[in-house]
């Protein structure tokens, strides 16, 4: 656990390295902290041109790093050295819930470290202090990105368990790229534009917080990712209950 805790705290140096140019090109402004917070997180404006959407998604870089570090957290136990731990549990669900709870804890630590670093960076580059708007923005973003990072990482783990660790990442990231593409072309294709539910239920559209800063829409994103996470946990539970544990090396599947 100590080792995984240290990995989760890597969010802070990762964020600082990612945003080093903002520090290097620092020029004091009088912009509100909340505005700078959004700008530093999602690399720019809240508009939805193709370039802006791509830049906004690139702003989720720290989430990608978290996925890479914890994307095989459950997979490793099931497919390599955790079998003796699993066989000691009362049931598979005991093992699964314990691991999922741990994964969620590390997600909270990672995203908190990441967003706190961005908030402090934003506060450093302005003459204004952190106000209640910035705090609200921070808390809302924390909730949304924590559940977003958690559900993506859990899905990578479950796909890795099913198809192998390489395929786990490929499948989930291909899906995210496809969903980002759908968000980009949404305005351009009348068929898609006339189905607003498609954009509303697109996880990438919900993860990029600064697209919809009104209270009701950020609340929707919070509930959306909570529900998505719950669904992923339950699907995972069902799969784990039915699978054969450690029966084959998934990396060299027949």
């Amino acid at each position, binding site marked *: 656990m100590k080792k995984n805790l240290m990995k989760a705290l890597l969010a802070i140096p990762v964020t600082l390295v990612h945003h080093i140019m903002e520090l290097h090109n620092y020029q004091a402004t009088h912009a509100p902290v909340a505005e700078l917070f959004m700008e530093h997180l999602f690399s720019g404006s809240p508009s939805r041109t193709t370039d802006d959407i791509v830049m906004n998604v690139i702003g989720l870089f720290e989430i990608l790093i978290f996925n890479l570090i914890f994307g095989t957290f459950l997979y490793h136990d099931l497919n*390599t050295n955790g079998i*003796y*731990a699993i*066989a000691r*549990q009362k049931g598979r669900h005991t093992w699964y819930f314990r691991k999922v709870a741990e994964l969620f804890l590390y997600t909270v630590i990672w995203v908190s470290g990441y967003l706190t670093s961005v908030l402090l960076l934003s506060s450093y580059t302005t003459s204004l202090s952190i106000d209640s708007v910035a705090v609200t923005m921070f808390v809302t973003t924390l909730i949304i990105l924590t559940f977003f990072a958690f559900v993506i990482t859990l899905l990578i783990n479950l796909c890795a368990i099913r198809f192998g660790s390489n395929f786990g990442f490929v499948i989930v990231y291909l899906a995210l790229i496809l969903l980002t593409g759908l968000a980009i072309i949404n305005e351009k294709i009348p068929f898609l534009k006339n189905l607003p539910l498609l954009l509303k239920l697109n996880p990438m559209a919900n993860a990029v917080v600064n697209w919809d800063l009104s209270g009701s829409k950020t609340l929707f994103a919070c509930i959306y990712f909570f529900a998505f996470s719950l669904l992923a946990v339950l699907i995972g539970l069902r799969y784990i209950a039915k699978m*054969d544990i*450690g*029966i084959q090396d998934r990396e060299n599947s027949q």
Partner: protein
Amino acid sequence: MYTIEIRNLCKTIKNAVILEDINLKLESGNVYGFVGKNGSGKTMLFRSLAGLVHPTSGEVVINGKILHKDIAFVENLGLIIENVGLYPEFTGFKNLKLLAKINNKINDEQIKATIARVGLDPEDKRTVKKYSLGMRQRIVLAQALMESPDVLLLDEPTNGLDEAGTELIRSILREEVKRGALIAIASHDKEDIAFLCDTKYKMTAGRLEEMA
């Protein structure tokens, strides 16, 4: 007192028959040996007994409780599965302590006593990845023994051990059966089975037959 009954157990994976119509009854205080070539189904049988694998048909009943229906895993089980090790980044003691924390039945002194029992140094600060093959096998055996299990399922327990190590393991298993444990050993080595086992079975292409 443990009784394990296997009733018409079959396991098929992608149309390949791995276990075919296995029927067996195992009881405490006995040592059962399963010999067979690589790929004969020994490991799959042990994984099925341990609750790691779902049967395609048939059932495993432990003290009247059906595996995967009434219980998920065998209670108080000591398990060795071939080619499954411990966490390589931790020491032998740390590995066993992590496992012992799950059910909290034993303390640090008892863990160290088990490590010493299998011929290893409990104070060894080396991580498992620096162990030799024989040392890794011994520490895996230690994790199977440490909680005084009622059932020991040991798949190739003497893999990688020299003559002295093999003899040590055999004497430990004789002590365990005197304690009343139910022991099942799978091995491709007929000598292991001959020395230790009261009842011997031969596995061939997923089928089981009792040996004279």
